[in-house]
């Protein structure tokens, strides 16, 4: 029970951004977690760096907004997997092994030691058959991407900077659509 409660606390803290005005109507804890100093509990240090690098390729920092690294996606994934069922944990462990096997066969080194260009090649290969994955490497991609997207969307960076979300707050009136061009009559 303690563990579940802790998970909710941790996820709650990443979910809810400490924003101006939040004090007036606070829908959750506004703790800001120190992601930089976090020591992974599910992944090894090198796996943790690998997840960070892959997530950043899936959701990169670009002209639109900061990406997965800035959003702390690796921290979310490690925390969720720390509490996940053994089957889910195994899927991630074997997925990461498949990634390393591929880079060792192709480039003679583990994924984390690859150059940026080589890392891009791995992700391009993984994502090649997204709709119809057949190899271990291809099957890992949807798992990886799904949680990366979820973590990014729930992060302060993703929620506010990328999606521009300003909700989860108290307002006096919900305006909805008032555009004359969208009205039917």
């Amino acid at each position, binding site marked *: 029970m303690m563990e579940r409660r802790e998970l909710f606390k941790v996820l709650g803290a990443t979910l809810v951004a400490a924003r101006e005005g939040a004090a007036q109507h606070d829908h959750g804890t506004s703790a800001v977690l120190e992601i930089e100093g976090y020591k992974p509990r599910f992944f090894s240090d090198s796996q943790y760096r690998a997840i960070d690098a892959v997530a950043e390729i899936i959701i990169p920092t670009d002209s639109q907004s900061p990406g997965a690294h800035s959003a702390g996606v690796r921290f979310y994934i490690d925390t969720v997997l720390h509490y996940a069922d053994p089957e889910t944990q195994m899927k991630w462990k074997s997925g990461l092994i498949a990634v390393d096997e591929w880079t060792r066969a192709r480039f003679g080194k583990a994924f984390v030691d690859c150059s940026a260009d080589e890392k891009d090649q791995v992700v391009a290969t993984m994502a090649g058959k997204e709709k119809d994955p057949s190899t271990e490497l291809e099957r890992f991609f949807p798992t990886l991407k799904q949680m990366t997207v979820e973590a990014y969307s729930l992060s302060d960076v993703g929620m506010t900077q990328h999606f521009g*979300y300003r909700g989860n707050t108290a307002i006096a009136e919900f305006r909805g659509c008032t555009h004359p061009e969208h009205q039917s009559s």
Partner: protein
Amino acid sequence: MGVYGSRDGLWNMPDGVFQKTVRMRCPEMLLKRGVERLKAKGRVMEFVTQRKAIPTDPAWKRRATCHYCGQCMNGCDIDSKYTSANTPIPLAMRTGNLSLFTESTMTRIVLDNVNRRVRGIEYVTSSGQTVSLQCKALVLACSTVETARHLLINNIANSSGQVGKNLTSHFGTDVVAIFPELRSRDASNDDGTDYFHSLLTGLHWDKPHRDFDMTYQVQCGAGLNPKSLAIRDVPGYGSQLKRDLRDLNVCHAVMDMQGSLAPSPRTYVDLDPERKDRHGLPLPRVHLKYGPNDIAMARDMVETCVEIIEAAKGEVYSRPREITADTLGIDYNHWVGTLRMGTDSKHSVVNTVGQSHDVTNLYVGDSSVFAAYPEKNPTLTNIALSWRMSKSLAERAKKGELG
């Protein structure tokens, strides 16, 4: 009760006393535009704002006014949204006449067989202690499956043989639209009163469809919500994925079918002969089968929604590839009908005030008493029926009829 909505003047959805309505977002307004265009060509359907038991008028003081944070289904933090746990129960507790026994499970209904009356119940506390309670009347409100299960376990109130029968719910599928013209709209706060703000209704009410009986409604929702993205299964990766995730969610609308599932002999609740709960009581089994009527109805829903989206100049983003019994989904929150209400004790379990035909001080205060089930959401009807049951029970108590 505090219900918001608009007075639409629809004969299939009568108006009530409504507080100020909560408007649709732009993608929902465009669906409405599609509906209006089809109506102009002679199609019969309506597209209206939803009605919800959430007060929106600050002058109405009986519950807090909604502040549109979108967390209606996660436990409204100011108890604005009407729910059994947060609205009537606290009110009843304030009278001083209500005691709550939480973490307790009823394990037996004790009957006085001579007088056809419930004498009391036994329940087990969280520490495993069995306790007896005497009562003048017993009201069961454990939800459709569980209330029927208790009557079956205790083998009471079932001279009609209808306990557990006539189970039904809503079933459905969904169609997702996108409106590229809305990609750059302001979607910074679409929360409102949770996702669905609009409703497609009035279909096949004037005359039945040639392929199926009864009808369906379609709850429609829209809005960018990063806490739970409506469209997250987007192909690709990199900057394009980021852009698509935002744009698609900003301009999408979901059309979610709620179809009337016809009660049939194949849809019922009974007791599992093998599996038991931790008190040794049989677990319930839910039997559910979709038939040709349901499949034909779902096919019509998909075709109609696609027509609306196209008439609105939108694009169909996703739709079920084919409709079969396997692709339909049941709504596990909307079960009704295992203890149907009626005037004839041979064919129904309770009378029109929710009182058992067989056991005169046994009442049912949940949606298991529904005798028929339209496509509409059940909760407010459920509350109205429970209200009527409570009034009748209170009158009998005042007259001293409960002993």
